[in-house]
Structure formats: structure tokens, C-alpha cells
């Protein structure tokens, strides 16, 4: 059964978190703790920090993320097909070929538009 196969993973998540918290606690206990204004200031190569630490980012990062999601979803469609490939035969390959071909059209458009360039 699936649930029982997953039981060790649930336990593992809990143990990993407990170990992590213990490590953090130990360093809190053993290490000195005397914060000062200068020490807690954000690091900026020794200068006084200018402006907020979080600022606007270029749109190209967003574009990469969108492309990643699209290809990620594509991969997920490939996954069950790859598992079942040996049962599907030629028909499965043709269906997957059409699926990929449609996506390749989008990919070529992207390539030509220069969306994959990182300028």
C-alpha cells in the first residue's frame, strides 16, 4: 500500500527537522551572544547600507521561471509515458511525437524572439 510505503518518509521529515533544530539550539547555547548595532547591520562591504535590502528585479528572471514551469509540466507529461513506453508501442511514440512537435514550435518561436538570451 502506498501509505505504508510513505511512512518512513514522514518519519524522516520529522527526524530531519528535529536534528536541524537541535543543531541550531546547540550553536545558540555554545556560542557567545552579544549583539551590537554595527554587528547586526546588513553587510555591504563595510559601507553604511544604502536603501532597502530588497529591491525590484529585472523581468528576465520572471521569464526564466515561466519557461521553467512550462518545461517542468512538459516533463511531467513525459514521465508516465516513459514508464508505460514498453506497453504502448509505435502508437505511443507517434502521440508523444505530436505532443513534442507542438511544443517545439513554441520553442523555436522563443529562440527566434531571443527570449532565451540572457542580456
Amino acid at each position, binding site marked *: 500500500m502506498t501509505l505504508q510505503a*510513505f511512512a518512513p518518509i514522514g518519519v524522516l521529515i520529522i527526524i530531519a527537522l528535529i536534528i536541524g533544530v537541535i543543531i541550531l539550539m546547540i550553536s545558540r547555547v555554545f556560542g557567545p551572544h552579544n549583539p551590537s548595532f554595527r554587528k547586526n547591520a546588513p553587510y555591504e562591504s563595510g559601507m553604511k547600507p544604502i536603501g532597502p535590502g530588497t529591491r525590484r*528585479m529585472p523581468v528576465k528572471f520572471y521569464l526564466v*521561471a515561466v519557461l521553467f*514551469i*512550462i518545461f517542468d509540466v512538459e516533463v511531467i*507529461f513525459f514521465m508516465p*509515458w516513459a514508464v508505460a513506453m514498453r506497453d504502448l508501442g509505435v502508437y505511443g511514440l507517434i502521440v508523444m511525437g505530436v505532443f513534442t512537435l*507542438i511544443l517545439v*514550435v513554441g520553442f523555436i*518561436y522563443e529562440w527566434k524572439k531571443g527570449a532565451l538570451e540572457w542580456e
Partner: protein
Amino acid sequence: MIQFDFSTIAFFVFAVLTLGGALGVVTNRNLFRGTIWLMVSLFGVAGLYVLLSAPFLAAVQVLVYIGAIAILFTFAVMLTRSLTRLNVRYTRLWPSALGAVLLFAMLVIGVIWPVFGGNELYNQPISDVVRTTTDLGVALVSGEGYVLPFEVASILLTGAMIGAIVIARDADEEEMEQ
């Protein structure tokens, strides 16, 4: 009568994660933190998929939502000027609340209704109807299965790809002009 075995406890943990995360999303003023809470909520949903014997869906949930959508959201948040420190009050509370309740009611009716119809499928717990990934692969590409939705999905993905470029290009040009 609820039996307190391993799966029941797991269900409650995941339910709390899902609902608690969702609550965190709507109550947080900080958009980045809101994103992280959303991921907690979606992780809970992944856990629920495992309980329903749909491990493939659970892995996809973690891979796509926590691995990809979270990144997209944070990138989108950082595109905006100051959405991490939001202090605009949303005023149209009542229409939104009404819409949300209506949507929820529709979902509940959609899920509960067939159960009363004496449908054979619902006589056993869904978690007993185990389907393997191989079955999923066969169903996706077979003629009796979902081959048409499968191919349409690729058109949808292509559309999304082109749409993303168009939007990003526009935003880029605006930025150039400024």
C-alpha cells in the same frame, strides 16, 4: 466513529497544514511570507494526495507547486515596486467573500452530490482504488483514454510559452523607456 490509526493522524496533520497555510496566506501583509505560507498549504495538499494513494500526483504537486510556482511567485513579487511591504487596504471585502462562499458551495455540492446517488464508485474508499503510473501513461495516450486532452495540453503549454514572451517583452520595453 473515527479510528485513531496512523493514517487518521496523518490526515489531521495534513489538514491542519493545508488550512493553516491558507489562513497564513490571506492574513499576511508581506507578500513573500504569503508565498511561503501558500507553499505550506500546498505541501499539505501533497500529503493528502499520498493518503488518497496518488503518490505520482503528490510528487508532481511538490515538484511543480513548491519547486516551480513558488519560485515564479517570488520572482513576480520582486518585480513589483513595494509589494513586500503592502499597506493598501482592500475595500471590496463583501463581494469577494460572497464569491468565495459561492465557489466553495459549488465545489462541495459537486463533490458530495454523486455520493448520495448510490454510485458504485463511491462505495469503497478512494484510497483502495490504486492506479499505477503505468496505467496513467496508458490512459494518457490511448484512443479510449485521454489522447485528445493530452495533445491539447501541449497547445496550451505552447500558448503559455508565447504569452509569457509577449508580456515579458512588453514589460522590458517599458522599462527601457523609463
